[in-house]
């Protein structure tokens, strides 16, 4: 389903080359979950960005369903994201000024999906926010905002969900609820999940774990 092959990312900083990721490789099967763990600045988020086609590697490739996503032009990668991916972020990234319902409808509207509203209402009901459809982001608690973000990610029924520290901004209890919700949706939609986290407890819930340090894969994929 998802394969990273010798991924490297090098950036120029003040005339020097800085290696962010160095020769990362792993494989992940369909409907399985992978946790990427490591210290701050180890390159986890960069790796997640590369897996989602948000950024380009200096070398190496990412195969999604046996197709290299970087062999495509940026326009085609955008279509690939639209058709296959869902994202959940640490800081929720809800669109200010839009209601919970409008936020969830947004990715469907970008696909010109005529049943955007009914699908959005359905998934918001599913995440327990059926009564908060008309509320704006700043009228919701952190946990509720993340539920909206999760609903927004799943409403397009993505094949691959990329989550960046989804509980990073939440207290433990709320975080646990969110994780429970996310994993249940992953199961329901048969979604493949890649998760970046500091939280070992959360990592253990995933089928596979890789650890990165200073851009290098220090422990190869571990299957639970």
């Amino acid at each position, binding site marked *: 389903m998802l394969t990273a092959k010798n991924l490297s990312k090098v950036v120029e900083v003040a005339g020097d080359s800085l290696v962010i990721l160095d020769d990362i490789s792993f494989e992940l099967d369909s409907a399985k979950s992978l946790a990427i763990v490591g210290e701050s600045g180890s390159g986890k988020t960069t790796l997640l960005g590369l897996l*989602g086609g948000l950024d380009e590697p200096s070398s190496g490739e990412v195969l999604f369903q046996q197709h290299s996503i970087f062999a495509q032009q940026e*326009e085609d990668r*955008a279509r690939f994201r639209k058709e296959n991916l869902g994202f959940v972020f640490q800081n929720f*990234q809800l669109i200010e000024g839009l209601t919970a319902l409008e936020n969830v409808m947004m990715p469907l509207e970008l696909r*010109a999906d005529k049943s955007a509203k009914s699908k959005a209402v359905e998934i918001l009901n599913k995440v327990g926010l059926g009564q908060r459809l008309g509320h704006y982001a700043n009228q919701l608690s952190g946990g509720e905002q993340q539920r909206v973000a999760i609903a927004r990610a799943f409403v397009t029924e993505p094949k691959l969900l990329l989550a960046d520290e989804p509980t990073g901004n939440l207290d433990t209890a709320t975080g646990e609820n969110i994780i429970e919700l996310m994993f249940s949706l992953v199961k329901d939609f048969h979604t493949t999940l890649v998760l970046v986290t500091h939280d070992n407890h959360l990592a253990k819930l995933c089928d596979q774990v890789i650890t990165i340090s200073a851009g290098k894969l220090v422990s190869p994929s571990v299957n639970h």
Partner: protein
Amino acid sequence: MGSQFTHLLGIAFKLFKRDFYRGELLILIFVMSLVMASVSSIFLVIDRIENATASEVSDVLGADLVVTSPAEIDESWLQDAEKYQLESARSIEFSSVLFANENIQLSSIKAVSDNFPLKGQFQVADAPYQPVSHLNRFPESGKIWAEPRILNALNLNKGDSVELGYADFVIEGALMRQPGQGSTLFNISPTVVMNINDVERTQIIQPGSRVNYRYLFVGDRKNIELFNEFLKEKINSSQRLVTIYDESPLAGSALLRSKKYLSLSTLLTMIIVAITIAMSANRYAIKQYDMSALMRCFGMTRQAVLKVFIMILGFVSLFGIIIGGGLGIFVENIASQLFAKAVIDGLPDADYRVLIYPVMASLLMLFGFSLPALFRIKQVSPMRVLRRNLSPAGLKTGAIYLLSLATFVLVMWLQMGDLKLLLNVVLSLVAVLLVFSLIAYGLLKAVLPMSERLKNPAMTYSLRQLNANKGMSLLHLLAFSLAIFVIAIIILVRGELIGKWQQSLGENVPNHFLINVKPDEVKPIQSFLESQQVESSGLYPMVRGRITGINNQDVKDLVPESGQNHNSLRRELNLTWSESIPLGNHLVEGEWKWPEQNPSDSNATARISLEEKTADALGLKIGDIINFTIGSEPWQAEIVNIRYIDWQTFTPNFYVIANPGTLDKFGATYITSMHLERSQKNLLNQLVKEYPGISVIELDLILEEIQSIIGKVSKAVEVIMVFVVLAGVALLVAALNYTLDTKYKQSAILRTLGASQRFISQSFRYEYIWLAMLSSIMALIAIELVSLILYSVVFEIEYQIHWDFWLIIPIANLMLMLFASWRGVRKVTYSSPLILLRQS
């Protein structure tokens, strides 16, 4: 394709609605409305004033369009005029001699047709300088109207008979003024107006006679323009389309200057507006980076993101055009009521079709100046959803900025149509920006080290902040100083340039000329004027001569092609002599020093002083000899100096001034100019009765027309000033909003570090004080530089330093900036740090 467009339009509208309610687009909509309101009201007011001015111009011409021809024109042209729904009339002009009471008088005869006059009225009195009747008709067959000089020379009164060619005519009255008088003002011989049907009876016009046929047309402005274009294609080299500039150079130059003033003011308003748009669009773009990254993350392509934001700007435009257009029409109505009606009788209705330009200009300005911001939004990396500190890289290509600049130049060129003025202003602007950047950099460098020596911590912190955000500080200094600069230049245009111009046409400007005064009449006329307390410019001798050669060679062989059509070669010049340099003249080259003249040495080479522009046009320099023909005699003189003449002085001015004594052998007549009040017009009657040979040229009505044009222009500039001040305030608010965005975060961090609210608010205010002072100094330096260029190159007016600005601008700028930032500073200082952090 269509469905994708509708789909993106839906998303764009949703985002527009969101940003509208959140106030993110308010400044942009406000600025867009302001552009539309200012440009549309300027256009509507100017259109009405131009229509009114055009009607005054028509009065000077006696028609909307005039063609002159030495022979009758093709009849089919008149039929074509009918197709354009134009009314036409014609006059035949020729010279002949009138006989009466055993005297003769050479006169200009003007025979007019049915429909004459098409514009304006004849003013006819029972006797010269008596109360006049305004007549919309022409003389009946067998009757004529004659100018006072004829009546006095031939000792005629109303009802007397006079002979012209083989026909007799009855004097119906004294011709005091006629439509289209501009063309006849400086005729040497006085005018008679007669009925065109009587021409044949006189038998004066024979094959080969020198006759000038004038064809006059009036009608709808658009049709006149079309017919004008049609005639341009048809006329031959001996026929001419007459413009205001030919008929009345004075009114023509007033009109030309008016347009320059208005164009300059509008242009400067546009500059402020353009900066405000660029700044507001950039601020909006920065706030959309997250949105753009998210949309990319959701799978939108770069192009689609760009399209969505272009559509959002489209909605902004729509709002701006509706609000601004409505406001523009409202202001134009109010402005016309308040200002224009006072100076214009029967102001024509506004033509709302002219609004198409403001709509186009507003759209071009908004999109042109938002382009860099739009492209930054397009370039946001989708990785920003994971790393919020990722900002789009600066635009690598200057093409986008060049495109913005090109948009600006295009809008300006469409509006002004005066490439010279536009180039002057654009070049000045580029120079100003360079100078501004250098001065700003220098000033910041000079001020920043002070932070170490200051004892007030808030002041020290404020300087450190300016230093920390050098790029932003420079940007704000440029924006503020440009706004001040533009407002000040418009105030200069209104107050100083127009004021000086009005002053040059002030109350006691000479409005009558006396010419053809014989040498023995000089003293008695001087005494007469003194006894009547009439102020005159003094009597100057005048000899008429034609330039025939240069350095003893034919003039046609030596003068460059560009100078072949110069006035000095097309007609006789007025030559004079003088011991001293006349008022309103100054030397450009050489010395004003005449050699000792031995009266008995008639062969000695004469010396002359030559007018600067004539010297340029003919390619003449000091030491060259000019060969003249005076009467039928040759005369030559060496150029010893080149002289500038201020043609606005309304005193006799001469292209050529010789050293005294050298022109004595030619019979000279004298000329003077004087100012007469309306109540003193009767003196003219006495003068022409006493000295029948003299001619009076009355400029009073033309001067009144010019003053009326200036009055209108100055009112129009006042309207523009209202908008320029509003645009300046909008720019200030946009720039302050820009700074406040960063202040939220600063304030929150300082508060968490334990800084007092007083310290924070003081340091922010000190920052604005520095910005106000530095931007004032920059603006003042630029004002002096640009006004020096404008005065000397464009308007040809003497330059002086504006000391009053050096006092007023820093104080006004400081007050305005502190006032405008007061609320914002309070908000970022006194809100809870938590709220501030969230907002930042």
